[in-house]
């Protein structure tokens, strides 16, 4: 089988900004393109479908070239039938195919909630593991330029509640490729959430086919004072905050779980037991979300290792506004993470 012998890479190779031409660099979007390209080349069962995948922009540049290379039989546009499109992917997977479905926005996944939650997530369990469902559902989170309430939601929290789904949130080009390969290789439904702002970020991406395994967090920066668990674009914000805090003598450990289902809780617990402080930075609403879940589990399992109450840095419980002054007020970032850390480490100081 094409997916049983993959090079599994647990750690992202160190990337030196000054390495120049000696290291191959790709941006996040091109890394996704390459992962799909290699999957299509490797396995005739793989196909890619979604609204506008073969239009000139092709899902933000991540699919158009594929249609040119593999033709409309394997890379094709779909009707605006979100619910049935997911159902069709499931049916095709039941018949032995390995579909990748592309949605421009996670907001649109809500129209396919029935197929994702009532069907994809249940199929293995209901039928006692008899039916593999290797379906990857990609979607790209929007932000800014007045995208507003229905074009900028990150809905991983809604799906996170549901057993039976695997949920991936890459933050680097390297992880984007390796995690997408793992997603396509997986025999279960995978929700793959991209963030539009990550697309311009570059990192070292090897040319060969490699898999970044699910359920293994990446420690993006080692530190001893505070643990910051962050996903997707919040990893970038956390690393910025950590740089600034380092200048103030505060040593922050940044952990990127990369997949929230399965979640590498052990790496998080070990870090919190070391630092005694936890901040979770999420790309979604505060209430009932991924950040809340991490805080709950850490509190249950490492309560006595905590020096102070954990903190969530996440979206306010509001729809996303369109206006840019309101957007600025809405989105948390490096400064909010920094503030949360400072309030923990130096509670007597007014930040």
């Amino acid at each position, binding site marked *: 089988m094409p997916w049983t012998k993959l090079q599994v890479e647990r750690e992202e190779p160190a990337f030196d900004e000054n390495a120049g031409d000696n290291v191959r660099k790709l941006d996040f979007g091109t890394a996704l393109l390459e992962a799909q390209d290699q999957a299509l080349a490797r396995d005739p069962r793989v*196909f890619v479908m979604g609204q506008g995948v073969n239009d000139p922009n092709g899902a933000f540049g991540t699919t158009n070239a594929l249609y040119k290379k593999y033709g409309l*039989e*394997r890379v094709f546009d779909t*009707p605006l*039938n979100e*619910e*049935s*499109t*997911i*159902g*069709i*992917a*499931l*049916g*095709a*997977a*039941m*018949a*032995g*195919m390995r579909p990748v479905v592309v949605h421009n926005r996670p907001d649109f996944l809500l129209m396919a909630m*029935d*197929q994702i939650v*009532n*069907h994809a997530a249940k*199929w*293995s*369990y*209901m*039928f*006692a*593991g*008899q*039916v*593999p*469902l290797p379906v990857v559902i990609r979607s790209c989170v929007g932000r800014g330029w007045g995208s507003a309430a229905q074009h900028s939601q990150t809905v991983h929290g809604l799906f996170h509640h549901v*057993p*039976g789904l*695997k949920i991936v949130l890459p933050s680097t080009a390297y992880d984007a490729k390796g995690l997408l390969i793992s997603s396509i290789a997986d*025999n*279960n439904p995978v929700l793959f959430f991209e963030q539009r702002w990550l697309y311009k970020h570059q990192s070292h991406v090897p040319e060969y086919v490699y898999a970044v395994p699910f359920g293994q967090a990446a420690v993006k920066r080692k530190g001893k004072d505070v643990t910051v668990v962050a996903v997707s674009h919040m990893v970038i914000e956390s690393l910025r905050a950590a740089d600034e805090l380092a200048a103030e003598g505060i040593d922050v450990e940044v952990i990127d779980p990369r997949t929230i289902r399965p979640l590498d809780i052990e790496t998080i617990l070990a870090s919190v037991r070391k630092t005694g402080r936890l901040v979770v930075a999420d790309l979604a609403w505060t209430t009932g979300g991924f950040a809340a879940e991490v805080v709950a589990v850490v509190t249950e399992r490492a309560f006595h290792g905590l020096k102070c109450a954990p903190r969530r840095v996440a979206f306010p419980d509001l729809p996303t506004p369109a206006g840019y002054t309101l957007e600025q007020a809405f989105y948390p970032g490096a400064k909010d993470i920094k503030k949360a850390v400072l309030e923990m480490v130096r509670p007597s100081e007014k930040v």
Partner: protein
Amino acid sequence: MTNKDCAPFPNPELTAAAAADFLTRMLMIRRAELKIEELYPLEQMKTPVHLSLGQEAVSAGVCMHLNRDDAVFSNHRSHGHYLAKGGSLKELIAELYCRETGCSKGRGGSMHVIAKDAGHWGSSSIVAGATPHAVGAALAFQMQKKNAVAVCFLGDGACEQGVFFESMNWAALKKVPVVFVIENNFYSVSSHISVREVNEFLYKRAWAFDIPSFRVDGMNPLDVYASAAEAVEHARSGKGPFVVEYVLQRWRMHVGPGDPNAALYRAPEELQAGYQRDPIKEFVEHVLTAGILKEQEIAQISSRVDGEVEEAFVFAQNSPLPDGGDLAKFLFVD
């Protein structure tokens, strides 16, 4: 119910073997469900049963034209589809008894049956939920250049769901080998179609997508057999999807044995006129009159089916129950 608009079909040429096969499938559904109904009050089958008594001709008549490699998708009223497609009777009954030997190992119950090897690919109890799965499977058959077709059984209620319209759009657009088999028994639980829809002629919905369709008397096994042959052949020969609406009578209430409240939700004229036509009786009369099968052959089929039903219940009742320690098994496929 009304037979208005039902397309006429000349009686199909049935060989003795085909007639015996068809009759066996219908009888298997009938006798198994009568037995389920008889034993259900003992509360040993702890799963909601949606009986298809009265609707046997459609399950059997459609599946008569399908091969093992053809895929059937079904719904909450799944027993008939499962058995007609060749699913194991023992495993079905064991599933109703929630046993580890059930077709879904006691994880699915009556509404989630599967017989992968026989080509019954699973059933969804979300109304119309499996319609896109059938299109997806058919799309895969097309990509894989297989000569297989996918069939989705759905009820009149499912025809109200948006995803069915989406699925027809997809099927027509990609011209995939799928047959939507609508079993219109006119009731969603106890709500008559007239309070749910302005147009009870469900086959017309296909018109919007240029999908050929017809309405057929689903209580007439010969019409079912002939119409299904045409629909399946259409899909198999690469001409794209087909929609068949079978007009049917559901003999029992929506879920569970009997229909104690029939008089409270069915119109009096409906209860008298033609209510509980028996497709199996009509079929037997036909094959005897036409000299296709003899009395003795029918008696043999009947007693063989009865024997298998008895055996299946004994198997189920004596099968082990799933262990609570295995609760977390099967969330994912390895």
